[in-house]
């Protein structure tokens, strides 16, 4: 059938696979939940890259320790922590009333800014103007004092914490919004606005600043006169802010407790800022 050379190669490959599987089974099977050596975090994909960087740094300081970061969304984080499938949950908002059985540890804060295309002459929008744009009552930039053209309203998908923070601040119900485009992750919003001179959207302030620095043709605009920068968020003068939280169900294991302490220590500041969030003291 296959000549001998190929047959041997195939057999070797299969044998390798099988032996790797069995090697894994011995030490993998016992580490299903939190043990002294391994910690699993699941939750928001917005803060997963930051937490993964923190985990890598933590691991390098504590050999033999493994911290696995998985995504799946904030709701996943909450439910996994409740079911014991994860030691810590990552949630890109504060805890809700229905979640008072869980303990939250604030990791950082993140401002939410409105962004428009860099070629758009507008620099500020009032509260009322934003509501009118997002509910579809105002459809042309002319009505806001800009160059004539249709407004492409970019909105986040339901259930996302950025959307909840945004709508909550403006007092809008999700069903009232009339979007032109609905997006999932931050960068999709950035790219949608960057490719469309008539677009308006809202993203994390840090992401907007960083993208503008990289040369992406977007710019954050002020809300009711409050300038949208990381500084104003840190100073507390920007109104649209959300918390990024680590969540646990009951008391933390020693390893989890050490990791949370590390993530909230001054040492973690550089990582938080490298991801364009704002560290809390």
């Amino acid at each position, binding site marked *: 059938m296959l000549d001998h050379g190929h047959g041997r190669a195939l057999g070797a490959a299969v044998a390798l696979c099988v032996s790797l599987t069995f090697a894994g089974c011995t030490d993998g099977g016992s580490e299903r939940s939190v043990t002294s050596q391994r910690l699993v975090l699941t939750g928001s*994909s917005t803060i997963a890259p930051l937490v993964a960087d923190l985990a890598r740094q933590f691991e390098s300081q504590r050999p033999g320790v493994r911290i696995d970061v998985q*995504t*799946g*969304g*904030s*709701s*996943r984080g909450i439910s996994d922590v409740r079911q014991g499938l994860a030691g810590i949950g990552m949630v890109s908002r504060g805890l809700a009333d229905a979640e008072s059985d869980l303990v939250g540890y604030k990791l950082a804060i993140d401002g939410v800014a409105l962004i428009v295309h860099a070629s758009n002459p507008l620099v500020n929008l009032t509260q009322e103007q934003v509501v009118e744009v997002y509910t579809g009552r105002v459809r042309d930039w002319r009505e806001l004092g800009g160059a004539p053209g*249709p407004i*492409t309203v970019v909105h986040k*998908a*339901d*259930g*996302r*914490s950025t959307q909840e923070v945004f709508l909550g601040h403006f007092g809008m*119900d*999700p*069903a009232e919004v009339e*979007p*032109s*485009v*609905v*997006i*999932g992750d931050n960068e*999709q919003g950035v*790219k*949608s606005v960057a*490719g*469309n001179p*008539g*677009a308006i959207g809202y993203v994390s302030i840090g992401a907007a600043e960083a993208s503008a620095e990289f040369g992406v043709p977007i710019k954050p605009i002020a809300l009711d006169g409050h300038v949208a920068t990381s500084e104003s968020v840190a100073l507390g003068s920007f109104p649209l802010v959300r918390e990024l939280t680590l969540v646990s169900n009951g008391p933390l294991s020693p390893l989890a407790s050490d990791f949370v302490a590390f993530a909230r220590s001054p040492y973690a500041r550089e990582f938080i800022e490298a991801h364009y969030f704002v560290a809390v003291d």
Partner: protein
Amino acid sequence: MSPSTKDALLIALLRACAVAAAAVVVLIVAFVARDSWPALRDIGIVRFLSDDWSPTGADPGFGIMPMLVATLVTSAGAITLATPLGIASAVFAHFYAPRGLAVLLRRVMELLAGIPSVVYGLWGLVVLVPLLLRFAPPGQSVLAGTLVLTVMILPTVALMADVALAAVPAPTLQAAHALALPRHAIALKVAVPAARSGIVTGIVLAAGRAVGETMAVLMVCGNVVKLPTSVFDPVRTLTANIALEMGYALADHRAALFVSGLCLLLMWMALASTAGLVRGGRHA
């Protein structure tokens, strides 16, 4: 071991493989049905067809009709475009191309088949959408989704048609040649009909990919839940809906998303069974 024992063993082994393959789909359907049951029980089928889609609003709505239409329209459009292109590509490789070019084209098709959906989506978002924006805002639209899906499923149609054309018995082609039929007639009137079964299989596999595609359509279709009135309108497919909201959905909302998944599966099952009837005999 006697020949008949060997045969019996072989057939038993092969049957086990086939049953295992078929069992996977049963498991998946059962899983989706199980997780959609709470929503079907509490919300009721009628509301899934008549409501708007606003699961997190003060007055939740769970209507999935516009998304079902979006899935059908984008997939049908992609299949309509990809089928002739894929068959043409395979005909080219078998009847018109110099040997080297045919091999190159096949390799390129294999490559196109392996590019991640996120890369197609990214390309669609930063290249295709701004192009379409010049015709009508917002650029993210039915057309963008259809075009990206066409590019994604074209390799499947082309490669399967390629294999199917290779399977046409040489005597058939030689007979056509002996009758002095021109090349285009041999290709279109003899070879393609003979390869009909394999080509239809390729189309079905490609249609499956189109209906089930998640990432790329999520990035270029606009994700607005509304019935489209033109190809430039933004739409949300059922798959994009699940991907967008699953990670952030609780209880009822989550079950409702599974209902949309179940709906998709049932719709696809109906389509696949119809294709099975159309496929017809084994040898031309």
